[in-house]
């Protein structure tokens, strides 16, 4: 088995590892780094449960090789909370009941993180468009949209 060395910054911490090139980013995060907040849902690039933010853009970590993250910066759901304080998106999902079973939630949160950084005053329609690659099978989309709006407002007001 041939391995290649990579260095990846995950949630502000630099990690070095020797990995097989075929190792998927989601498996690297969950199994090598033991960051199991990022979920594997469909494993076929459809559901978005595995969404992470790489260099500012939300991507499906089941559809990227870990070696592609070499030298890049990744944020996972574990990186949202800062100093014991929930991120406005996490707070929004809590306040607006944006989850039921919670399986899609890490992906929904990470899509939201990248999206609200480019649009901090979205319409409901823009939010629905933004989450069109994230499936919620509890059909909680209405409250997820509300949660995004809650977070967007908090972030505009400068609340942490």
């Amino acid at each position, binding site marked *: 088995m041939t391995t290649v060395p990579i260095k990846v910054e995950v949630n502000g911490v630099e990690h070095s590892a020797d990995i097989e090139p075929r190792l998927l980013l989601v498996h690297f995060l969950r199994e090598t780094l033991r960051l199991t907040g990022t979920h594997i849902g469909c494993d*076929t690039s459809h559901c978005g449960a595995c969404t992470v933010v790489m260099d500012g853009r*939300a*991507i*499906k970590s089941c*559809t990227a090789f870990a*070696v592609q993250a070499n030298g890049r910066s990744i944020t996972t759901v574990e990186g949202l909370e800062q100093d014991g304080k929930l991120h406005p998106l996490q707070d929004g999902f809590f306040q607006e009941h944006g989850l039921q079973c919670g399986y899609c939630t890490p992906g929904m949160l990470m899509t939201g993180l990248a999206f609200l950084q480019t649009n901090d005053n979205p319409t409901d329609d823009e939010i629905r*468009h933004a989450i069109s690659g*994230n499936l919620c099978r509890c059909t909680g989309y209405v409250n997820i949209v509300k949660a995004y709006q809650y977070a967007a407002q908090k972030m505009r007001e400068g609340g942490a």
Partner: protein
Amino acid sequence: MIPRSFEYFSPQTLDEAIALLQKLGPEAKLLSGGQSLIPMMKLRLVSPAHIVDINRIPDLDYISERDGHLKIGALAREHQIESSETVKTKFPILADTAKVIADPLVRSQATVCGNLAHGDPANDHPATMLALGATVVATGPNGQREIAIEDFFPGLFTTALEPEEILTEIRIPFPPPKSGGAYLKLERKVGDFATAGVAVQITLDDSGACSRAGIGLTNVGMTPIKARQTEAFLAGKKLDESVVQQAAELAASESQPMDDIRGSAEYKRDLVRVLTTRALTRALDRAKGAA
């Protein structure tokens, strides 16, 4: 799902990448956005022995206006098309297309050039590029060559690229004044391939008649289809209701759909008719200056 093992290369220059393709031979596969390749590798539909990852090659992620053309580099991602002002104002057909490809997360990674180089008749950009009369630039050991988009798709999942060539740029001529285009696709759900898709790009002359029409069809044949008879029929005609209807019927007759899970061939052929009517109408509105 875990792909089979492969040897990984990450060239830093285009020359290095081409030298690798020459050395490794046809068992090597290029990785750009990877949004088609990686799912296929996970399903083990393809298991390349070598992966040449071109994502580290600098300066290939451009969308620029030069020499009367819109130029799209090998690593320009779909989300860049969506946010490009030039695309929004000058190439609404291209904006139409990018926003119905897969979903926003996939479009963070997926490249426009990869959408063509994959050679999948279900992909959306081929029809749009056929309508726009684009040219692709293939770079190989002997330098660059240009390939007209209509010569680029000789067969199913096949392109005119040689194994040691890389599709490095798409060149789209800037449309003359009084041009308009539209891309319409029916998909069962976000992220699905088209049940059918129709791309239309037209230019009107001073009398308001159609001086040029380009029409491409998605996922209704073994390759992306250029609807040549429909294009020829429209040339010189004023696009009134009856002409649009006849053109739509002609486009439907040029499609070669097959029965599958997305519908019967008959249904898809009728869908081409409906989508062509709507795309022509929208293209006409845009050519006349509407948004």
